[in-house]
């Protein structure tokens, strides 16, 4: 079966040819991925495979940076670098911080 990422030749609408500057958080995602590769935690094809495993709905409806960070998180859990529990706790903490903002 064809992967949903394997999209060469599929029909699509017009291309948005405008330049869009990357948001700071998107640059952080890229920097994180470069560092993880430098630390030997994941190679490019592991990152790619993780992207290809996000599920069609997530993959086709997320931006590039969104996919990259979600795939990275999955890889980190797979490799035991972080645990689901740790991530869930940290996510809750982040959410709580946000709610405390004026």
């Amino acid at each position, binding site marked *: 079966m064809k992967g949903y990422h394997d999209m060469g030749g599929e029909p699509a609408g017009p291309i948005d040819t405008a330049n869009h500057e990357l948001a700071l958080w998107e640059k952080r995602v890229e920097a994180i991925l470069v560092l993880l590769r430098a630390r030997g935690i994941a190679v490019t094809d592991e990152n790619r495979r993780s992207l290809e495993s996000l599920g069609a709905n997530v993959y086709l409806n997320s931006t*590039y*940076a969104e996919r990259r960070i979600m795939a990275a998180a999955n890889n980190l859990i797979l490799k035991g670098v972080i645990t689901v529990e740790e991530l869930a706790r940290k996510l809750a903490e982040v959410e709580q911080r946000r709610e405390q903002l004026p």
Partner: protein
Amino acid sequence: MSDHHDHHDHDQDHAHPPGYRHPLQPDADDTLTYPRRLEIAVRELLIEKGIFTAEEVRAGIEEMDGRTPENGARVVARAWADPEFKQELLANPGRACESLGYVMDTTTQLAVVENTPQVHNVIVCTLCSCYPRALLGMPPTWYKSLAYRRRTVREPRAVLKEFGLELPDDVTVRVHDSNADLRYLVLPLRPEGTTDMTEAELAGLVTRDCLVGVAVPRKPGSK
């Protein structure tokens, strides 16, 4: 496809002076989506675990920002000005670029494809978004878009038309799907009327879009 860009957009190839760096955009807190919360959470966890430091993340961003299409433009300008360098660039692209101070990521290999009067090359990565970042910086949104990845292999001329480039039928359009460990750079055709230009002036004609193959360098004196 959702688009959470909370920063200013640009039209096409806007006129900034060479070397201009867009200021880092502050993140707007009202659009803290799940992936953005995930980025914060993952980063903080990894810092806590000593995988890397906040300073290393900052330095990484600075390094990425330091890589711009001007790198690729300088390589092209040198190739136009120096036939020996051009030969080396086509035979040993990585080594040639290193001689100018541009080092490819060790996990990838550079390929340079030359435009001629008979052949126009255009690059795409249908499976993800592979891109020669050492020479061009970060890939543009359109390069990473599903529409570009889907259509460029199948109807390249229609895609090029959307970028404002129309090629006659007697020019072969050659698409490269950059699907393995190679990263591709297009060596554009040197425009007419440039024989008296300095290398720096030549580099000024070469935009990022020319190096991906969705544009050609403008002739000097034209808009």
